[in-house]
């Protein structure tokens, strides 16, 4: 057969396959948007659940997810960015450094349910935090660390070595060079990585199953030692554990979670694009 005809057919086939990849994504988003949007109202977002969650709103789940994201960030950002700075700027290429890198790559692929188990064992039981926002945040933070570390390290390494040399040659200590030149340049990349990491943790269910999530708790948490509802777990519960749940509430919850996570995604993309255009080198 004519090779150019083959090429035409081949390209067409690949385009078709890409459509097969894309269309279900659109379907998922479209379906959730179409069926979830009517359910979302001011009451849905700001009221407590009623009638065994079959009516009312999902406020405690929203608040819980926001709190967990904040708690995760509070722990994971300083630790993760600190570790990234260590790896990129201080660590020499020794066996230990390689072990750390390998550890991070490995941590990134540990199944989230294993983090959940670890969280139960260490934070809930051993350290006696109980099922609490504290235990859940710490569990999610440990899960998020590898993402933050590896994206931040990449951003730091993308800053040309010469800037560090120039800073040192002007009498700067390593830390001065990092703080005044390297970090500002790497910041967009670090922020993007942090958001992507937090986004992932915000949508996770398995790590919070046994460390913090409450099935039904029609009150807002009062302290970090309280349990809380959370959007992902709530969606799981109302779609598998509660018979006779109105579909609209399920879709509304799914849409709320999707909007929360995807808007973080969009913010990260915007930040990255904005700074990429402004970069001076």
């Amino acid at each position, binding site marked *: 057969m004519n*090779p150019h005809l083959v*090429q035409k057919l081949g*390209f067409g086939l*690949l385009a078709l*396959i*890409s459509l*097969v*990849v*894309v269309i279900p994504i659109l*379907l*998922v*988003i479209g*379906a959730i948007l179409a069926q979830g949007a009517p359910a979302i109202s001011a009451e849905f977002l700001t009221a407590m659940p009623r009638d065994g969650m079959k009516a009312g709103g999902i406020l405690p789940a929203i608040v819980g997810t926001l709190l967990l994201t904040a708690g995760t960030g509070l722990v994971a950002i300083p*630790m993760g960015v*600190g*570790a990234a700075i*260590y790896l990129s700027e201080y660590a*020499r*290429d020794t066996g230990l450094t390689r072990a*750390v*890198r390998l*550890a*991070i*790559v*490995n*941590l990134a*692929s540990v*199944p*989230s*349910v*294993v983090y*959940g*188990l*670890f969280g*139960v*064992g*260490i934070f809930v039981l051993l350290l006696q935090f109980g099922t609490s926002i504290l235990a859940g945040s710490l569990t999610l933070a440990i899960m998020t660390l590898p993402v933050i*570390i590896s994206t931040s390290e990449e951003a730091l*390494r993308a800053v040309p070595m010469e800037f560090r040399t120039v800073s*040192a040659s002007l009498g700067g*200590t390593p*830390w*001065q*060079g990092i703080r005044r030149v390297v970090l500002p340049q790497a910041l967009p990349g670090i922020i993007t990585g942090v958001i992507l990491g937090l986004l992932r943790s*915000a*949508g996770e*269910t*398995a790590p919070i199953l*046994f460390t913090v999530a409450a099935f039904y708790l029609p009150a807002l948490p009062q302290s970090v030692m309280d349990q809380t509802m959370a959007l*992902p777990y709530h*969606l799981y519960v109302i*779609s*598998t554990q509660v018979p006779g749940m109105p579909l609209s509430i399920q879709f509304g919850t*799914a849409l709320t*979670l*999707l909007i929360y*996570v*995807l808007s973080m*995604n969009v913010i990260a*993309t915007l930040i990255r694009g904005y700074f990429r255009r402004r970069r001076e080198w």
Partner: protein
Amino acid sequence: MRRSRRTLVALRSGPEWAIEAIIRVLGVSTIGLVALIFIFLLTEGLPAFFEIPLGNLLGIRWYPTSELYGTLPLLLGSVLITVVAMIIAFPLGVCTAVFIREIAPAWAREILKPMVEVLAGIPSVVLGFFGMVVLAPVVREGLGAPTGLTTFTGALVLAYMALPTIISVAEDALDAVPKSYRDAGLAMGATEWQTIWRVVLPAARSGILMALMLGMGRAIGETMAVMMVTGNAARMPVGLDALLRPVRTMTATIAAEMGEVASGSTHYHVLFAIALILFVLVFAITLASASVMFRRRERGGLR
């Protein structure tokens, strides 16, 4: 304007020393964390191997309430669903990566890439929910399965969850093939299509293999979506109709039963043993692909 003589000796300032120390501690503590997770899984999981006869542990019946802890159906369930997911996702992912990198016009790329990123961002519980309420009925009606919650439904959802990983790693692999390879292919009179199949893809094969492995790692560890769409029946997934019957994975077992077990009980230890198996599986996959990744960057740090 001469300045008075300075000495070269100056004490290191206090806060700076402290900051550097903190950063070093943070860096090294990440490895401690991995060690901690592993040790913890070991101490909680290993007892299972002493408390339960091996024949029972490797048996085909998982009925913890009757002290039957056969993990084989769970292991096979995870393997089956992962393999089927990869059979679907790997060709789709690689072809899409080729399309994005080698063929697609700019506008198509501008649509495809963000879509894939969006897919990566959708929480697994949302995909599981979609699989339950939309996909499962279709599978039930369309394929005549008694219930829509089947191995196949799970594998389909898993395939799409693994796609972003496969696509982006494969894209990187294609990106790393020098342009001169393509030019050489075209210069010899081959069409772009022939060049892609005979030159570019073979040159990128180690990276594409890595895409497969990382996709597998992603799929085998997935929990919520799988738990929601596979029906969770702990029976041996054998026979031709296994695809259209419910199945239960290792991850779903942990997630479903962890809440009910008493800390320190045999059942509790078995769940940790399963987590240990998962951890080791994923660790092996990571190690295998790590060699490819480490070759990429070589540079010392600033002291």
